[in-house]
């Protein structure tokens, strides 16, 4: 990188994976080897992805820092930039700058049980942590993943869900909202907070990581509290609108905290001190 904070790395789209209606995953490789060698990131961080001539958009890095040589991002086609990204094909060149933001303290979780709870398009930020944990599986005790989407079609990373399902060292529970099931659906039916309550994972020595739409988070936290989880052991990521990614452009703040600098990762205990501005 140069002195210019706004200069992106040039990245080649190595692989495009269709995940769900309007949702794609890009595997990105650095055009310049020097950039690739210098680049490091940790679970939870994000970046600015750009199509030259259209603009930049903010997403998390969805791949694990344990997988070197590439990064992945998963996005839903909704606005101007994500539409342009969606039109990019394998081999196209896009911009990426980052990594920005704080990280999940994965190293501090050694010896704990991990409980992942995700809803819809919020699985990508969690997928980064899940693979990070599974790649050093011996560091953790039980790993439980509860993932829900509105309909069966909307579940992302379907092939990885199958992987996790088959693994003996992972307990995977998938669910869809009532009415979202297909005739051959074998998972749970119900909203994520309801299913968490039904599965009732133990809070003993357990870290809960919760990512999802605000309404899901709002209803999941009380369930976790009922199960005995301390606020300090519940983690989530916030997703306010951003432009710069490094605390200058002035729009992602929640009270005096910048989601781009002090977050995106916050504990439920920290969220209690924040005003309702996310």
């Amino acid at each position, binding site marked *: 990188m140069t002195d*210019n*904070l706004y200069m992106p790395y*040039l990245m080649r789209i190595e692989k495009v994976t269709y995940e769900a209606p309007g949702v794609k995953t890009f595997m990105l490789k650095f055009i310049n080897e020097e950039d690739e060698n210098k680049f490091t990131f940790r679970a939870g961080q994000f970046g600015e992805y750009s199509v*030259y001539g259209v603009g930049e958009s903010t997403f998390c890095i969805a791949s694990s820092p344990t997988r070197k040589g590439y990064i992945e991002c998963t996005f839903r086609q909704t606005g101007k930039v*994500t539409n342009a990204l969606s039109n990019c094909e394998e081999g196209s060149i896009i911009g990426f700058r980052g990594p920005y933001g704080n990280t999940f303290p994965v190293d501090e979780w050694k010896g704990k049980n991990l409980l992942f709870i995700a809803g819809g398009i919020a699985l990508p930020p969690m997928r980064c942590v899940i693979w990070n944990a599974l790649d050093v599986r011996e560091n953790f005790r039980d790993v439980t993943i509860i993932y829900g989407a509105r309909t069966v079609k909307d579940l992302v990373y379907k092939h990885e869900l199958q992987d996790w399902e088959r693994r003996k060292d992972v307990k995977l529970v998938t669910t869809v909202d009532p009415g979202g099931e297909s005739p051959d659906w074998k998972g749970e039916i119900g909203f994520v907070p309801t299913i968490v309550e039904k599965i009732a994972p133990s809070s003993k020595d357990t870290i809960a990581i919760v990512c999802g739409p605000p309404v899901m988070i709002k209803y999941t936290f009380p369930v976790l509290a009922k199960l005995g989880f301390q606020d300090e052991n519940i983690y989530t990521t916030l997703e306010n609108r951003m432009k710069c990614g490094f*605390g200058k452009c*002035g729009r992602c703040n929640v009270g*005096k905290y910048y989601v781009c600098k002090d977050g995106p990762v916050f504990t439920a205990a920290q969220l209690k001190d924040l005003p309702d501005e996310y």
Partner: protein
Amino acid sequence: MNIDKHLIRKDSLEKLFDILKQNNKAIYAPASKNSKVSFKEAGSFSEITTGYIQTAQSSKEVAFPRTEKLLDYTKNREGISVKGTDIKDFPEIVLWGVRPCDATGIGELSAIFNWDYKDEIYNSRLSHVTVLGFSCSALDEYCFCTSVDGNPGNTAGSDILFTKLGEDGDYLAEVITEKGLAIVSLAPGLFEKDVEIKKEKFLAEVPVMFDKEEIRKKLEKFFESEQWVEQSLKCLGCGACAYVCPTCACFDIQDEAHGKSGSRVRCWDSCGFSLFTLHTSGHNPREVQSQRWRQRIMHKFSYMPDRLSVYGCTGCGRCSRACPADMNILEHLISIQEVTV
């Protein structure tokens, strides 16, 4: 460095201007057009306006232009080539006639652009700017610099501060920085050494209107106050307050494409706009205007002092002068101070 005091004769200002021009400096100074005074590049001394209380726009534009190119790109058969803005290529600018409230605003902008990540585009532009401040001998009802640590003869942010010694008088020149010394060295004959002059009696008397520390403390418990709604009912969300503010630094980043090439630019933005925080999903953390007005006041009088140890307001009063709905930040701050929380 110590502040050097000099006397400069009133007819020497024009000579100084000409010498700076001969030394290839671009001079930006207040010029009057259509009853509006703004900073423009001045070709000759006669183009400069005096007697203004405040320019319509602040002088921040020389270091933080309203549109700043960040990079250029060209798409070609092999892929794409991208070139970042050359930060060594910015022009040498002398900013002439800056009021002390604008000069101090530079420090506040710098705090934003340099906490944590350093914005070298901003820093490099600023390093090429020399600020010639002019003290205020007059004020209007919107001025409140003394309530936010400023004063009409404040030297902070200026490289040289000129104070007019009475109607039709000569000037005191206080040389504050190395950049100021460099200007003196171009025209040493014009600056007469004189340490005895006292400027105070030639300055406007700006009354202190509120206690900023008290307001900061009140704001800590004021987030849910009904007052935000009351105060912002008139707000049109036009963003004018942010555009004229010497310390507002919020920006947007956009691409401008022309066929196969184009640029990425950053441009001024405002927390008063409803789109400012709108999520792609349609969710907006600051959905209504009162939440956006609250952000403006909280950012300047609570978050910035907490995070950056500076207040985001210099008391220039421009936001109140510019507001088409006649909102007045001074009145609002006083009402916050009066509230019991």
